[in-house]
């Protein structure tokens, strides 16, 4: 977007990701080398210029020249490293904030680099920490335009740092044509971008913050490069017939080390020490010649850039992947125009680099015609993390979590008080619990159920070994519904569907309907809750369970607890595996509630509850409500001004 500056129609163009905070832009900063500086610097300081802004110089031109010399003496690295100490100087000129019309001072400062973005920024000190520090140092105004969600208030003079969270609403952000007040950050961005575009002041753009990818490592344990250099130093790729180029044996796996202060050294790779491997005579098509092998290896990331393709056709030694096989598993289809893996699940920590690299390789393979999917992954899902309590002693060292005792809400290890905090799980934190331990104590099916029941899959959750037993009990009750604990005999009875009591059929079909939707939507915790509810219903019913109900219950839990499901399926008389059975389908007639509770309010207070059909009409519900004894009594003969009906759950009566 453009900020008009000077008298000759010039404008400072900035790139920003926080256009929503435009009303809070109270000054601007150009890189010292910015070309506009010379053009706009005035002959004298404007009246009332704060002395901190001038750096003690007599004229803006002098200040700019001195500051440039100072900045030029530092490298970009130093300029970034000195981030804490804010330096800069006023150019003597003001720009116009395009949305508020305010005059904002234009500074030059070395924390803005010419080689990045446009070499100019709009500074929003209330909502950017670097701008905040600069503004404090130079007594520049701040305006809060994003309402802090913590308890600091909107008076920026009392703040210790910028408020930069996206989880908040816009304030103080309106002019005669556009208002962002009350919008969230995303909504405000969209609205202001649209406004700027229609006014020709700015436009939305996508800025890829991509850099070239340094792809070699001076390591042993990686893929060797299939590259050799000829006697002129020209790199040649090895033909497919010479692949794989296997990692050679070496005597020493470590890179050579040098005097730490000797900068005039350069990496010596482990592979370079195997001279017999490095220097080879090869025929690359124009007769045998001497070559020298590349001795760097590929980075860790290389192997994960294309592994989805190898799963499809893992034994293929003739080509990367058979095209028919690749098209079957990953090719584009309806609803998936770019093809790819249907569902890819992993931690958010890999969301940037691995996915970027994998897409890069995939796109090249697609462009060259080796694969039919333009994207490797159709849908990505980041699961949450299992956290664990870390207990630390008075010195801050973790103590074995399993040996900590809890007394009256306090925690002790070997009699000494310890502090509890929620953190990661790991050996070094002495709080790791292994799946093997839980399998030994309860079984794998219990562990599976517990992990899936802990909460929504995308939310991090604390591990609690003591809570695992809850899912163990669920499996015990399920088992007991079907198997006699003293004889081992199956206790189910054959009952015709029509003879099963309606309450059981309703519980069954509601569970089937809910579990189906939940499993499809990766909502495993709520699926388990619904299975538990059905299990409890059948336990309470206390009689032998109809075979068809027991079978469907087993099928419902089969994806979650496959071993016990296989065992019960076998006990119920089946000779095949439960794995490829059809998942139960709900009968819609039993899914709908037969009645729902309707609340009747008079003047906003609940006066009666009615059991009504879920499909009751507004008119019918109004009639039933007005005829209800309690309602009649509560109205006590008063007339009615208005009845608001939201069938089937609410009737609101406003008396005259």
């Amino acid at each position: 977007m453009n900020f008009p500056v000077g008298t000759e129609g010039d404008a400072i163009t900035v790139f920003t990701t926080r256009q929503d905070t435009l009303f809070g832009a109270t000054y601007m900063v150009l890189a010292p080398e910015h070309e506009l500086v010379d053009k706009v610097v005035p002959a004298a300081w404007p009246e009332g210029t704060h002395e901190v802004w001038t750096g003690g110089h007599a004229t803006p031109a002098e200040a700019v020249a001195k500051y440039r010399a100072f900045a030029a003496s530092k490298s970009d690295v130093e300029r970034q490293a000195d981030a804490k100490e804010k330096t800069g100087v006023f150019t003597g000129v003001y720009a116009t904030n395009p949305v508020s019309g305010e005059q904002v001072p234009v500074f030059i400062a070395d924390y803005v680099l010419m080689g990045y973005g446009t070499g100019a920024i709009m500074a929003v000190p209330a909502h950017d920490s670097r701008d905040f520090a600069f503004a404090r140092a130079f007594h520049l105004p701040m305006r809060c335009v994003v309402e802090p969600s913590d308890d600091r208030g909107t008076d920026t003079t009392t703040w210790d740092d910028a408020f930069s969270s996206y989880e908040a609403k816009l304030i103080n952000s309106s002019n005669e044509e556009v208002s962002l007040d009350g919008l969230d950050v995303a909504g405000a961005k969209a609205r202001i971008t649209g406004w700027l575009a229609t006014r020709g002041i700015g436009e939305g753009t996508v800025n890829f913050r991509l850099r070239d990818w340094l792809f070699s490592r001076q390591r042993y344990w990686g893929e060797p490069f299939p590259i050799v250099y000829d006697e002129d130093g020209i790199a040649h790729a090895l033909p497919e017939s010479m692949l794989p180029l296997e990692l050679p044996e070496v005597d020493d796996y470590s890179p050579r080390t040098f005097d730490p202060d000797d900068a005039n050294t350069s990496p010596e790779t482990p592979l370079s020490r195997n001279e017999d491997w490095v220097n080879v005579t090869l025929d690359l098509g124009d007769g045998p010649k001497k070559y020298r092998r590349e001795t760097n290896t590929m980075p860790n990331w290389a192997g994960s850039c294309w592994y989805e393709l190898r799963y499809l056709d893992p034994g293929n030694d003739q080509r990367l992947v058979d095209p028919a096989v690749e098209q079957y598993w990953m090719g584009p289809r309806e609803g998936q125009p770019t093809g790819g893996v249907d569902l890819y699940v992993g931690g958010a920590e890999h969301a940037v680099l691995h996915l970027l690299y994998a897409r890069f390789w995939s796109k090249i393979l697609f462009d060259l015609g080796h694969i039919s999917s333009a994207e490797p992954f159709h849908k990505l899902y980041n699961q949450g993390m299992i956290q664990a309590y870390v207990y630390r002693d008075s010195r801050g060292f973790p103590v074995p979590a399993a040996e900590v005792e809890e007394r009256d809400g306090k925690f002790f290890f070997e009699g000494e008080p310890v502090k509890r905090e929620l953190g990661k799980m790991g050996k070094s934190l002495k709080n790791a619990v292994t799946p093997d331990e839980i399998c030994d104590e309860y079984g794998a099916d219990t562990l599976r159920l517990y992990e899936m029941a802990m909460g929504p899959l995308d939310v991090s959750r604390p591990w609690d070994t003591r809570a695992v037993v809850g899912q163990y009990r669920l499996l015990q009750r399920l088992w007991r519904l079907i198997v006699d604990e003293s004889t081992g005999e199956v206790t189910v009875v054959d009952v015709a569907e029509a003879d099963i009591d309606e309450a059981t059929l309703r519980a069954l079909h509601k569970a089937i309907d809910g579990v189906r939707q939940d499993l499809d939507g990766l909502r495993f915790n709520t699926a388990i809750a619904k299975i538990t509810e059905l299990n409890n219903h059948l336990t309470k019913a206390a009689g032998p369970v109809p075979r068809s109900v027991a079978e469907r219950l087993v099928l419902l839990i089969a994806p979650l607890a496959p071993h016990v499901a296989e065992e019960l399926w076998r006990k119920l008389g089946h000779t095949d595996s439960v794995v490829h059975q059809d998942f139960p389908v709900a009968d819609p007639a039993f899914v709908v509630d037969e009645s729902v509770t309707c609340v009747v309010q008079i003047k906003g207070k609940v006066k009666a509850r009615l059991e009504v059909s879920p499909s009751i009409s507004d008119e019918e519900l109004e009639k039933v409500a007005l005829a209800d004894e309690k309602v009649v009594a509560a109205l006590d003969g008063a007339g009615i001004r208005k009845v608001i009906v939201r069938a089937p759950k609410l009737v609101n009566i406003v008396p005259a």
Partner: protein
Amino acid sequence: MSETNSAAASEVAAPHRYTAALAAEIEARWQDFWDAEGTYEAPNPSGDMAARNEAEAALAAKPKKFIMDMFPYPSGAGLHVGHPLGYIATDVFARFQRMTGHNVLHTLGFDAFGLPAEQYAVQTGTHPRVSTEANIENMKAQLRALGLGHDKRRSFATIDPDYYKWTQWIFVQIFNSWYDADAKKARPIADLVAQFDSGDRAVPGSTRAWSELNAAERADVLSQYRLAYASDAPVNWCPGLGTSWPTRRSPPTADPSAATSPSSRPSCASGTCASPPTPTACWTTWTRWTGPRPSSCSSATGSAAPKAPA
């Protein structure tokens, strides 16, 4: 005491109760059954994994679902209960998809190159392959005990030469490609050579024709177009450790245990990790698709973190 007694008494009264011992017996038996029957093997439409019988042919005729986890690094520490959260979730989802009419591909490999095995090798002399393969076996046993329905025929490790043959092959494809900004796609470098040769495209930085350039000059020109290219890039170089490391990362550490200890940041002997970035022969690949490739690859390793736009 009394609790233990009553628990023991009820065990006697209920010899067929679902207990940890019974669960262990059931689980081991079904895991063996699934392996023996190949229950989770998903047929391909053709080739060496095509349907072997009628049941598999019926499966192959169904709509497919390809469900995948981010594969693990086979750490020597093995798994804790936090690791399998995603694997269990995809397994439940995959099983549900199998029961709703899909041919499901679900398996798990190992991302097995990596620094820990190399550091262990430096310390103990054990070949990284030996320790890595032992870790893989250990992890496979742990995962098997969870009852995950993986097509085990399809598992592999990235350190298998059969696998990294193709990693290398893809690298060669990238090396032998250039980005055609007009077509907005990667194309074989041979197409570019043909353009230079025919004169359809001028040789950059030269008034001479392609046929007048010698091999080294041609290689230099092509190097400016290749999607993977070697160049002298400034990297952060630490003589004390004998390693360099890429952009914006902490220096590596010689002591693997130090990496996990919050109090000791990795550092070089002198405290500052050397010297300004040092030009070193590096392989770089070009991930940018939106503009011309810079003439120097210094941006690949730029060590400054510029101010993010406000």
